[in-house]
C-alpha cells in the first residue's frame, strides 16, 4: 500500500506538478496536543499541591473539558473549515490529543469552543466523545458539563475541604458558558497550508479559572460547589480570557 502511494505520488508529480514539486496531499493532518499547567507548573493529579492566584493551596484531582466546533479559517478570503461532529473530551487523566484531517488550504486562524453546542448538548447522540452515561453528563435535561475541575483546597490550616467546579449551561435555553477560543496561527508562525502534517501544542493554565474577569477566593465562597448560576458564569468568563495559549 505504501509503495502504491509512493508510485501515485510520483505519477502525480510528473503529470501535474511541473512547476511545483511540492504538490500537497488533499488533506493536512493536524495534531492538537493539550498540556495543562497550574501556576505555570505541569499539572499532576496525584496529590501534588499548587498555589492559586489567591495564594490558597489547591490539590487537583480532576481536570477535563470538551472541545468542539473546531474551525480553521483563512482570514484573507474568508474560507473556513469546521470539523463536523467533532466533540473531544480532553482529560488530564485520559486523552489529551486530537488528530484531525483538514482539507488542504491556507489557514491562518483556528477557533474552537469549550463545551457542547445547544443542539447536541440536549441530545442523547453518541458522536465523538459524547456519551449520555459518562462522567461529563449533568443530566440530559441540562446537558453536559463543559469543564470540570475538582480538588482539595487549604487555607490557614483549615480542615479537609473540596472544590468542585462543574461549568456548563444550567439554563438549557442559554449558551452563556459555551465559550469560543480563537488563535492567530500566523502570529506564532504556524500558518497551515504548506505542510502535510501540523502539530499544535496548546497549553491550558488552570489559574485562569480563578482570575481575569473577577477573582475567585475559595475560602470566601459561600459554597465550594460551583454548578451553575452566577459563579459558574464568572468562572467561564475568567477562563475565556486566557485559558489556552499556543506554545
Amino acid at each position, binding site marked *: 500500500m505504501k509503495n502504491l502511494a509512493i508510485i501515485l505520488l510520483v505519477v502525480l508529480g510528473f503529470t501535474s506538478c511541473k512547476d511545483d514539486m511540492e504538490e500537497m496531499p488533499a488533506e493536512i493532518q493536524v495534531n492538537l496536543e493539550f498540556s495543562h499547567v497550574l501556576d505555570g507548573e505541569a499539572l499532576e493529579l496525584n496529590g501534588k499541591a499548587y498555589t492559586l492566584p489567591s495564594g490558597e493551596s489547591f490539590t487537583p484531582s480532576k481536570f477535563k473539558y470538551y472541545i468542539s466546533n473546531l474551525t480553521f479559517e483563512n482570514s484573507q478570503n474568508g474560507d473556513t473549515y469546521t470539523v463536523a461532529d467533532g466533540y473531544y473530551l480532553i482529560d488530564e487523566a485520559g486523552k489529551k490529543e486530537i488528530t484531525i484531517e483538514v482539507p488542504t488550504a491556507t489557514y491562518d486562524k483556528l477557533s474552537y469552543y469549550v463545551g457542547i453546542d445547544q443542539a447536541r448538548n440536549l441530545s442523547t447522540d453518541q458522536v465523538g466523545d459524547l456519551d449520555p452515561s459518562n462522567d461529563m453528563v449533568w443530566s440530559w435535561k441540562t446537558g453536559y458539563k463543559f469543564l470540570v475541575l475538582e480538588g482539595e483546597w487549604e487555607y490557614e490550616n483549615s480542615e479537609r475541604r473540596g472544590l468542585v467546579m462543574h461549568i456548563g449551561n444550567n439554563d438549557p435555553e442559554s449558551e452563556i458558558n459555551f465559550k469560543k477560543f480563537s488563535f492567530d496561527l500566523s502570529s506564532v508562525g504556524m500558518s497551515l497550508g504548506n505542510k502535510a502534517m501540523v502539530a499544535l501544542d496548546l497549553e491550558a493554565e488552570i489559574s485562569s479559572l480563578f482570575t481575569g474577569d473577577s477573582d475567585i477566593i475559595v475560602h470566601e465562597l459561600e459554597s465550594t460547589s460551583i454548578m*451553575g448560576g452566577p459563579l459558574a458564569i464568572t468562572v467561564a468568563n475568567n477562563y475565556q480570557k486566557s485559558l489556552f495559549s499556543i506554545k
Partner: protein
Amino acid sequence: MSRYPITYSIGIIMVCTSIWACKEELVEEPLPQNTEIELQHPDYFPNNIASPSDNPLTEKGVELGRMLFYEKQLSLDGSISCATCHQQAKAFTDGEQFSLGVNGTIGVKNAMSLSNLHWTSRFFWDGRAESLEDQALQPISDPTEMNLPIEEAVVRLQNDSDYPARFKVAFGTDQISADLVSKAIAQFMRTLVSGNSRFDQWIKEEIVLTDIEQLGMELFFTHPEASIELRGGNCGDCHLGFLTSGDRNDLLGFHNNGLDSDKNLDSGLEAVTGKSEDKGKFKVPTLRNIALTAPYMHDGRFSTLEEVLDHYNEHVESNATLDILILEASNEIVEPGQPVKLHLNNQEKEAIVAFLHTLTDETFITDPSFSDPFN
C-alpha cells in the same frame, strides 16, 4: 430535547470463518454450527464498547455459559451454583447480607447484582477482577463460596456426558479448560441487559413519570449548590447517566461514600492497588433494579432504601478519603467545621426513593433466556 426512540440493535452474523471453507466442510462432515451474536441493548447505552476480541458473544457460548451459571457441580459438594447467590427474581442477588457458601461458610461482602456488566469495568466490590472473564472463576474456587479448585471443576465438566460436546460447539474444542469455562460464563453474564424499566420507558417517551418520581429523578442527577438554591440528591455524580453505574475509566468508578470513620474504614480498593488513598473506596454499583437488591452497600449494612438515603443525607462519616463530591455537597450553606450533611427534606428523600423504584425492570427478572435451563 430529543430522546431516542428505542431501536434494538439486531444483527446476527454467521461465524463461519469464510463462505468457501464452510461450503467445503459441509459436503463431508458438517461443522458444528455456532453463530456470533450482537449484544442487544437500548440505543442510549454506550454503543462504542467492544466485547473482548478473544471472547466474542456466540449463541452456543452464551447457552453454555447459562448452563454453567446454574451448574451445581461447580461447587465442592454440588449444593450451590452461581445462581444460588445471584437469583434472577432478585436481579441476580440473594437478599442476604452475606451469602452462604458450601458447608455453611459465610462470605464477607454482599452479593452484587448482575446487570449491564458490559458497560462497567473492574469487578467485585474491591475491583480485584479486571475483566468479567477474570471475575467468573473466582467464586468457584473461593473457600467461602463454592470452594471447588478450578482444576477439579474442569475435570468434572470434562467427565460429564454432555459438556465436552457443548464446549466443542461453542469454542471448537472438547478439551475443557478454566479459560473456556470463564469465557462461557462471562458471555452469559454479558447478555444480562436490563433496559426496560419504567425509567427506560420514560427515556423512550413511552410513559410519563409521576410528579414525585420526576422530582426524584431531577434530584438524583443534580449536585446541589446551596448558594443558588439548586437542590440536589447528589447521586448522579457517581451513578452516571442512563446506566446509573460508575465511571468505566481506570479506577474512577470507585469512591468512598463515608460509611465509616478512619478508625473503622474497610480497605476496599486499597487491597488491590496498595495505595493508601484508595482505602475505603468501593465499586459504584448500578442502581438498576435497586429496589430488588436489598440489603445495600458492600457489607449489606442497610436493609432499606430509606436507610440508604438517611445515610447520605445525615450520617456520612468524614474520613481521609471521603469523596469530595460528597464532602462538598449540601443543600444548605454549611459553616466550616460542620459535619457533612446533604440537608434534603423528607419529601425529597421520598422522591428519590420513588425514582429508584422506576429502575425496576420486570422484563429483566422474568426473561426466560436468563432463567435456570435445568428447570
